[in-house]
């Protein structure tokens, strides 16, 4: 990794932690409400069915799932919608084209800085959970699982980065494409399992979803964290994620190469 890439990463992190109160309000508030809503919704379902386990989840397991899934989702989202399209729209992309830097590498470092920020939030919550609500049936700390998790998350982040970039580059042709980013977000959240665990989907839907990249972005890291992956599963699924990553990288570079020739650099 070249030196400037590391500087970009650190500078973005510094910008992120400049608003510390935002960090804590966001962190505590989001975690609190996500858990609260998930707990009451699923408690109501478990009570109404008079069961203790549904699709392999206990109510505590479900709470843990909803504690982690939104955070994994946010790790994938990186800087969020508009991280390239807004600069195309404003004409700010000019600076990246003039400087002797690789635009993709620059954007990846910025993106990963945001992802790391949310990864830290996830580890803080995991640490607190481990310290106060430790339950071996739901989550058991293991270096191997954490190692699996980090490598999967990194791979999933890069996959989503390239997928997201391909959509953001549409701004070369259509100026304002914010809504396209939101559509991609709906897909990722729902088909990735952030909204409801994929195990609750009907069998045919689970099979269908497994042919898309979305389960590899949220459900796969989640399974690694829960320790549900054997070494064979890990190798098999990370191989599939790698294929998706290469496919989206190819797509993003293709769209970029087409798009930069229609870019006027004038902005609004």
């Amino acid at each position, binding site marked *: 990794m070249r030196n400037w890439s590391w500087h970009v990463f650190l500078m973005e992190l510094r910008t992120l932690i400049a*608003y510390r109160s935002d960090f804590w309000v966001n962190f505590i*508030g989001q975690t609190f*409400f996500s858990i609260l809503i998930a707990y009451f919704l699923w408690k109501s*379902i478990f009570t109404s069915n008079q069961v203790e386990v549904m699709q392999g989840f206990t109510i505590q397991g479900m709470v843990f799932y909803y504690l982690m899934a939104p955070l994994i989702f946010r790790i994938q989202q990186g800087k969020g919608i508009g991280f390239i399209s807004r600069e195309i729209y404003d004409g700010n992309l000019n600076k990246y084209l003039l400087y002797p830097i690789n635009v993709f590498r620059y954007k990846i470092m910025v993106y990963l800085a945001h992802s790391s920020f949310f990864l830290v939030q996830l580890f803080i919550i995991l640490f607190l959970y481990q310290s106060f609500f430790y339950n071996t049936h739901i989550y058991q700390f293991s270096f191997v699982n954490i190692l699996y998790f980090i490598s999967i998350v990194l791979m999933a982040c890069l996959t989503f980065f390239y997928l997201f970039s391909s959509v953001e580059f549409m701004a070369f042709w259509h100026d*304002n494409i914010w*809504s*396209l980013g939101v559509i991609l977000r*709906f897909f990722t959240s*729902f088909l990735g399992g952030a*909204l409801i665990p994929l195990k609750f989907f009907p069998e045919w839907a689970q099979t269908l979803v497994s042919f898309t990249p979305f389960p590899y972005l949220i459900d796969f890291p989640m399974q690694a964290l829960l320790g549900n992956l054997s070494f064979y599963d890990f190798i098999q699924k990370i191989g599939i994620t790698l294929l998706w990553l290469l496919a989206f990288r190819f797509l993003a570079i293709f769209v970029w190469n087409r798009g930069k020739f229609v870019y006027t650099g004038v902005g609004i």
Partner: protein
Amino acid sequence: MMRYLRLYLHFVRFSFSKAMEFRIDFFFRVVMDLFFYVTQFLFFNIIYLHTPLLAGWNLEQMSLFIASFIFIDALHMTIFATNAWWFPIAINRGNLDYYLTKPVSSFFFISLKEFAANSMINLILASGLLTYFLCNYSGGLDPGRLSLYFIFLLNGTVLYFMVHIIFLMTVFWTQSPQGFADVFYAAEKVFQRPDKIFTGYVRRFFVYVLPFSIMASYPVRILFEKNISTLVLEILVPSCFIYLVVFFVWKKGLRNYSSASS
């Protein structure tokens, strides 16, 4: 009053010409909201694959509830959402000066200036969905209760915006509203869940303090339940409380506002 109405019609006209500038975005916004609606129906339909009842409601009643909060969402997206989006930016950049110097209420200006023409298509779709579920409801609906239900859905839309504004108004003091805005987006999911899933203090909190439960869930309960006087009271009291809080915090915030780069 007529002056405000005329002004609002101008806002709507400008918004339509602005929306037509970005036709592709116009189209994708319609698709985006459609995806949101489909996701909501799928979410609850998947849940109902594993349970016959949720919060005492069967799938038919739940579908009516989903259509109700989708209607509120569409109405909010059309009238208020863009204004809420620009609200903290206007304060941060000092653009509020522009509204303060006009001979109309600055709150009226900042809340209603941006009308989302593209979301209006979705409002038509959401209204169609709601009509479909109301017409096909097998239990039969009383016209009097139906009128109350619609009045409280409109109240729910305004209330949703007001609660959002309370979170955003923190920008007057914190300079960046991002943290609080994100908390709002995490908390607002409560309005997309039936209130009866919550119990104890949490339930009271979502009725009286952050009244997300009274926005869509309570109006739907008015259609199904026998005794509605308590429900009506529980909608009116927190609503008035929130409107007063917004009025009070807005006044305080303006006193704290120091123009550009506030």
